[in-house]
C-alpha cells in the first residue's frame, strides 16, 4: 500500500513541478520581422569534432562583429546565441528547438555533421527557421534530404571530388591505390576518383575500405605496399586519418609513393599533430586564405586580430554562411525567415571567395574548389593552392530528388 501511495504521490509531484515550469515560460516563436537578427550556433562542444566546432563559432563571431561595427545588417543588430551539442542528431535537434522556441532564434548555423543536418532539415519548416550548413558535405543534403529552409554553403562531397578529379593529370604517379573509409562518402569518392583516374589514362591497381574508427592500419598499409602502387588516394578522416598517416610513416610507405592525395584527410588543425611527415601531401582545400580579393583580405585581417591566427576552411565557410545570410536579409529587407528564404533564391553576392550564387533549385552555393599541397612555411606547415576548379565543372546538376 505504501508503495502505491508513494508511487502516486511521486507521479503527481513530478507532473505538478514540470507543469509549473512549463506554464511559467512562454512560447516566443520566430514569426515575422524583428529588430535583432538572432542566430543560434550549435557546434559540437565535445567529441572529436569539438575543435572544429570552436573554430566555426569564431568565424560567426568575426562576421557578427564586423556587421555590428558597421551599424548592423539592414539597420538591425546581429546577436549570436551560442549553444552546444555532442554531435548526436537527437541532441542537436533538441537544442535547435530550444533555441528557436525559447530564445527566438530565426537562423541556425555551425551545425557540424551531415546526419545532424539530415535530422534538422526534416524539421526546419516546422520550426520556421533557416539553417546555414557550412560543414556537412553529404550530397543527400541537397538531394532527397534538402529543405526549402536549409542552405548548403559548403561544397558537397561531389563538388570536392570533382575538383580533385579535374586536376588528376597534374599529380605524379601512374599506378593508383585507393584507401577509403567504409562509409558512404568513402565509397562514392572512391568510385568517382576511379572513373576520373581511368579516364585520365591511369591505372587503379587496388581499392580497399577500412571501417570507420579503425585504429590499426597495419594490414591495410601492408596491402598497399604489396600492390606496387606509386600513388595513393586516401579518404580517411579525424583520428582514422591521423592513425593512417602516422602508421604509413612508420611503414616507410612514402618511399614507394610519388603522390599521396588526401580527400578531407589533412587540414590545418591537424598540421601540428601530423608534423613534417605530411609535407608534400596533396589534399582538397575548400578555401584559399591567400585569395586576392578585398573582402577576403578584410576577413583574414579581422579574424587574425580576433583570434591571433589566420582562418582556414572551417571559420571561413562559416563566415561565408554569415555573408550569405546577411545578403539575403538585405535583399529581403526583413528578418522574417520565410522572406529571407525567398530572397536568397538564385541570389548572387560578392564574398570572400569571389562572386558566388545560391542555386535556387537545391539551395547549393556555387563556389570554387581547390587542390592544395602541404608545404613547409615559417616553422610550420601550410597549404599551397595549386589549382582551382570552377563550380561549372565541379557541381552536378540539381538532384531531382530534392523537392523543396
Amino acid at each position, binding site marked *: 500500500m505504501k508503495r502505491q501511495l508513494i508511487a502516486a504521490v511521486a507521479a503527481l509531484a513530478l507532473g505538478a513541478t514540470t507543469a509549473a515550469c512549463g506554464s511559467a515560460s512562454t512560447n516566443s516563436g520566430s514569426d515575422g520581422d524583428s529588430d535583432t537578427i538572432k542566430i543560434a550556433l550549435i557546434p559540437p562542444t565535445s567529441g572529436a569534432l569539438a575543435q572544429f566546432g570552436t573554430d566555426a563559432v569564431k568565424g560567426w563571431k568575426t562576421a557578427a562583429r564586423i556587421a555590428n561595427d558597421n551599424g548592423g545588417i539592414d539597420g538591425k543588430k546581429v546577436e549570436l546565441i551560442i549553444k552546444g551539442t555532442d554531435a548526436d542528431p537527437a541532441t542537436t535537434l533538441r537544442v535547435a528547438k530550444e533555441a528557436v522556441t525559447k530564445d527566438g532564434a530565426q537562423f541556425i548555423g555551425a551545425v557540424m555533421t551531415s546526419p545532424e543536418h539530415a535530422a534538422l532539415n526534416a524539421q526546419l519548416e516546422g520550426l520556421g527557421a533557416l539553417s546555414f550548413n557550412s560543414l556537412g558535405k553529404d550530397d543527400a543534403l541537397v538531394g532527397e534530404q534538402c529543405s526549402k529552409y536549409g542552405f548548403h554553403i559548403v561544397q558537397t562531397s561531389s563538388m570536392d571530388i570533382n575538383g580533385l578529379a579535374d586536376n588528376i593529370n597534374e599529380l605524379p604517379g601512374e599506378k593508383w591505390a585507393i584507401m577509403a573509409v567504409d562509409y558512404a562518402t568513402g565509397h562514392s569518392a572512391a568510385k568517382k576518383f576511379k572513373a576520373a583516374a581511368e579516364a585520365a589514362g591511369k591505372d587503379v591497381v587496388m581499392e580497399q575500405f577500412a571501417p570507420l574508427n579503425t585504429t590499426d592500419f597495419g594490414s591495410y598499409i601492408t596491402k598497399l605496399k604489396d600492390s606496387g602502387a606509386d600513388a595513393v588516394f586516401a579518404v580517411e578522416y579525424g583520428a582514422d586519418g591521423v*592513425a593512417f598517416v602516422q*602508421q604509413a610513416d612508420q611503414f616507410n610507405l612514402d618511399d614507394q609513393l610519388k603522390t599521396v592525395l588526401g580527400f578531407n584527410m589533412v587540414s590545418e588543425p591537424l598540421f601540428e599533430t601530423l608534423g613534417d611527415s605530411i609535407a608534400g601531401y596533396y589534399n582538397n582545400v575548400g578555401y584559399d586564405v591567400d585569395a586576392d580579393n578585398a573582402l577576403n583580405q578584410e576577413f583574414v585581417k579581422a579574424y587574425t586580430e580576433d583570434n591571433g591566427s589566420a582562418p582556414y576552411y572551417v571559420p571561413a565557410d562559416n563566415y561565408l554562411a554569415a555573408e550569405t545570410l546577411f545578403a539575403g536579409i538585405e535583399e529581403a529587407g526583413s528578418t522574417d525567415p520565410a522572406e529571407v528564404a525567398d530572397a536568397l533564391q538564385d541570389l548572387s553576392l560578392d564574398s570572400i571567395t569571389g562572386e558566388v550564387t545560391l542555386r535556387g533549385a537545391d539551395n547549393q552555393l556555387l563556389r570554387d574548389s581547390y587542390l592544395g599541397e602541404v608545404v613547409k612555411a615559417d616553422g610550420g606547415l601550410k597549404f599551397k593552392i595549386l589549382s582551382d576548379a570552377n563550380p561549372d565543372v565541379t557541381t552536378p546538376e540539381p538532384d531531382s530528388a530534392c523537392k523543396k
Partner: protein
Amino acid sequence: MNAAQVLNGLALGSLLMVLSSGLAMIYGLRGVANFAHGALYMSGAYIAYSVSDRMGFGLAIIVVPLALAVIGVVLELAFFRPLQHRSHIELGLITFGLALIAERLVILIWGEKTLRVRPPEFLQGTSTIFGVEYPSYRLAIIVIALVMAAALILWLRLSNVGLHIRAASQDIETAAIMGINVDKVSLIVVSLGSALAGLAGTLAAPYIALDPGMGNAFLITVLIVVVVGGIGSIAGAMIAGMGLGLIQTLSTVWSPSFAVLVPYLALTIVLLWRPTGLAGKRIS
C-alpha cells in the same frame, strides 16, 4: 598471406595481451570486471604523450606504469577494499562511473584533439625481418609484450607473492583463513594490473592515434578477451588476447567488415561451446 601480415597480427595481439592480463588479474582476485580499465589505458597513453614530449619516450615507458600503479593503489584503498563486501556487480558499476569521470578528466586536461606520439629515434623507420621490411617500433612492441608475459607468468609461478596471488584468486576467503595477507596481495594485484594498463597505453601511444574514444574502443574487446580466456585466468587472457589479435588482423586482410565482428563471434562461440572460457577458472 605474407610474413608482414602475421607480424601485424602479433603486434595487435601483443597490445591486447598486455591490456587483458592486467584486467584478468584484477578480475581473478577481486571478482570485479574493472570497467575503468579502458580509461586507465587511455590515461596511460595520454600521460605517455606528455612525458615523452618533455623527457623522451624511453623514460615514459618506465614512468607511466609507475604513475598508473599509484592510481591502482588509490583504486584499491578508496574503492575495492572498503567496498569488498559489496556485490561484485555493484563494484563493477562503480568502476563504470569511474571510467566516465576519467574519460572526461583526460579531455579536460589534454583536449579533444587527436594527438600523436613519436617512437624513440632508434625505433623510427623499418627493419628487415623474415625477408620483409617491417616497422621497428612494432617489432619492439612484440618483444616487450612477450618478455613481460614470460616474466609475469614466471613470477606468479615461482615467487612467494605469486603463490599467494594464485591462492587468493582461487578462493579469497580460504586464503585469508590460511594466513595469507589478502589485503596486501590485493594491493599488489590491483596496482600491478593498473600498471599493465599503463604499459599498454604507453606502448599504444606511438602505435595508434590518441583520441578520447580510444579507451572505450578497446574496453569491450578486452572484456571479451578476458571472458573468452576464462574469467580470472591470466594465461588464458594472454593466449586469448594474442589469438584474437592474430585472427582479427588476418581476417581484416580477407574482409575488413567481417573482422569488426570477430570479437563478438569469438565470444558467442566460446561461451556456447565452453561456458567457463578457454581456461576455466585457473590462475596461470
